[in-house]
């Protein structure tokens, strides 16, 4: 362990920023998993129908756009990491 790891507790705003950054990191992983999901589906006669998968994929897409907009709206590209090199858990 290095002698100093920065503050143990962070101001509420910085804390929010950190958690938003975490959310931004998790989003593509969750999205990736959800995109693979249709591969595991089973249709009435073997493969699932294109129409159904298409509706699922586009619905997922719209949700992802919405979530991404929500997360990135309050996330600054530089701020949270400045001053503290550790992506500490606050």
């Amino acid at each position, binding site marked *: 362990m*290095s002698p100093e790891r920065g503050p143990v507790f962070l101001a509420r705003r910085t804390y929010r920023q950190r958690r938003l*950054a975490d959310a931004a990191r998790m989003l593509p992983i969750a999205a990736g998993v959800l995109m693979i999901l249709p591969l595991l589906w089973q249709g009435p006669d073997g493969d699932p*129908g*294109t129409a159904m998968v298409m509706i699922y994929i586009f619905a997922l897409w719209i949700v992802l756009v919405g979530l991404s907009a929500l997360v*990135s709206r309050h*996330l600054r590209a530089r701020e949270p990491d400045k001053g503290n090199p550790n992506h500490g858990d606050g």
Partner: protein
Amino acid sequence: MSTLNVLVLVCICYVALLFAVAFGADRAAARGRVGWLRSPIVYTLSLSIYCTAWTFYGAVGFAARSGLEFVTIYLGPTLVMIGWWWTLRRLVVVGRTQRITSIADLISSRYGKSNLLAVFVTVLAVIGTTPYIALQLQSVTLSFAAFAETDPEAIHLSDMQSTALWVAVGLTVFTVLFGTRNLDANERHHGVVMAIAMEAVVKLFALLAVGVFVVWGLAGGMGDMLDRIEASGISRFDVPGSRWVGLTLLSAAAFICLPRMFQVMVVENEDEEHLRTASWAFPAYLMLMSLFVIPIAAVGLQMMPEGANPDLFVLTLPLMDGRDGLAILSFLGGFSSATSMVIVASIALSTMVSNHVVMPIWLRYSGNAAMMSGDVRKVAITARRLSIAGVVFLGYLYFHLSGGGTALAAIGLIAFVGVAQFLPALMGGLFWRGATRSGALAGLGAGALVWLYCLFLPSFGPSAVLPQAVFEHGLWGIGWLRPYALFGTERLDPVIHAVMWSMLLNTGCFILGSLLSFPKPLERLQGAQFVNVFEHSGTPGGWTGNMAQSEDLLVMSQRIMGAHEAQTLFADAARRQGVAGYLPEPSPDFLQELERVLSGSVGAATAHAMIGQIVGGATVSVEDLMAVADETAQIMEYSTRLEAQSQELARTARQLRQANEKLTQLSVQKDAFLSQISHELRTPMTSIRAFSEILRDTGDLTPEEQGKYASIIHDETVRLTRLLDDLLDLSVLENGQVEINVQTGQLVDVLDRAERAAGVKDSTLQVDRDRASEAVTLTSDLDRLAQVFINLIANARKYCDGTPPVMTIRTSLHDDVVVVDFTDNGSGIPPDKQAVIFEKFSRLGQSSAAGAGLGLAICREIMERLGGSVSYLPGQTGAAFRVSLPLSGPPAAPKAKEEAASPEEAESVDAPG
């Protein structure tokens, strides 16, 4: 008028509009009205060059062949965009802080500004992009042909190639005009970006329009559409898992690595905050682009005759239904997709080719080119223009030679795999400090080799480049080296096979090479800079230069950046350093800044080499090495704090030592002062004692003798009293206890009084005054001032050895300060004595004249109390003293008292000096 002619007309109008938009945006930018040009929406729209004609037309074709699989091409970039916090943010910040001009520049810059690596990346990018450009030309040609077929009146386009040629020429002209306006590739091409943003809107609108027409015009709305999909040949979602995952990852990789994407995403980025908007807006754009692809494909498969090219459904469906307007719109959408891709790709490639291939070669063959006469700037711009033409021409050539057949359709994915080879070096460079140049070269080399062998060369068809035997039995008959089944992996689809092996081998070689090799210092510095870009955004140092080189640097910079820009840069740097003129010290900071600015024009590697030519070798500072040696910023911070603490200690020790020295000095001065005083008191005392003893002990003294001795005693007593008065006066002055009696009067009166009191009348001294200039109203303690003047005049009367002695008094006004110069025509004061004349008891030699040597010391004290000064003026005809005094009066007395009481001042109270 036939449809085809209308099409040609619309096309020309559209191109004219593009030129107008680009021109307008450039003009607006030149006038500084860039507000809306810099909006995040424009940035997002410019990213849409990801959607080329291959995706505009090809997505429907792709969907018609293999159903929903096409969507992976859009899902990959969606993942990258919503995951911007991981990679894109870092990429964009690195690109901006390091003034990166292209992906080749980034990779070369990260691995110690290695030009070899840059050349490698450039060549691979050109190989990967040329067929892609050919594909765009083909799509425009095919869409023209589709119109021609439905138009019986049209003159049959016997030569499809000519269309492609015209498109190529037009695009070259556009790109050269708007893409090479400024040499600094880091500056944004506002015109180009605006034009491609407009094209982004056109292609999205066109595709959506066709989609709406197909769903609600040809089919009977949403419900009917779903039924039709169910009834079509693509009703089942039977995509192999490996392709679904593999293609998604491939398109994600390509999205980051494609030179044209890198150009709009990183190089043209103006503000990293734009990513925030793009992170959701661009996925939304992609979603809309692919929304109607399956419906169009399904309806196309159903309604179009057997054997119709599914790649052109977007165009042929409206044409078949007689909707010429919609068809023309659709054509424009495809045309937009094709042109914007070619424009940006050729700009990106030309930057790479000119910076990493042409310029280094030119530099080498023109000797010490940085110092040569001639305009480097012109060479660079010409190189870039020729490169643009060359790249587009290569694309045309590829199209021409391949005959525009269906072989081209597959080239999209093949190109993706090619550029994806940059990914390990790129990501490793951004996240792993241990990545080295050797590793990057090994990885890129292995990946490129596998790609060429397993995908690119076989794409020309069996026996075209690779003989049939190689396909069947492997290279040299080794079964494990079959291009589609390396190491016996026969069950994979060729594209996925190539992706898997190339990426595995690439990453493996990259990691292994990095682990086994040892990086050069510059590499390690750059590595630290890139990986820790959010911690410290400066660039590593390295240059040390001397003043003589500044001029050479300016000469070089002028030729690269243009005279005005270079001079501004240099003058700014000089001003920051506090140096007048245009030549700053070539400090490491300045050289770094210069290198970064130059790298915006000619690339990091070339800029480094050019500065190296002038300045000599790069050096690595201790701090830089610390940044590399220490694995965490914490240790550095900790050691900096320790260093600060030890510096603090050293400072305190130094202060203590100084205080001690001062005290010792004061003690010595005090002793000297006491012995001086005793001596001064002793001399008159001795004579008083001697003569009073004579008077007492000698009985037979004549009255004359008695009178003489008594007057000697009297004189000595007077001298003693004066000495004690002076001492008292000085002590009072030095303690600040003197009462300053502020009056207002004329300087001329004060001088008159001083002249009289100094006894000028009774002496041989002549005083030369300029009474007109002495009519100055003063507010000060005029009695004290007169005392100073008296002293100065009396000194001249006593010591001036001119024949006849003349004193010149001149008065002048400087702002709020009146300056009076007293100059005599004597031999003056020797330079070695000038420093001490204001000290107590300083007399010049063993002068016969009376005086304890306290006069000037008192003068100095008085003038200080009055807020002015008296100083010796060297270089005049004789001794010269300058008295300067503020017109507004002396400073407040209590302040002086306080100062005198403070320990700082204490030294001057007792010290003779």
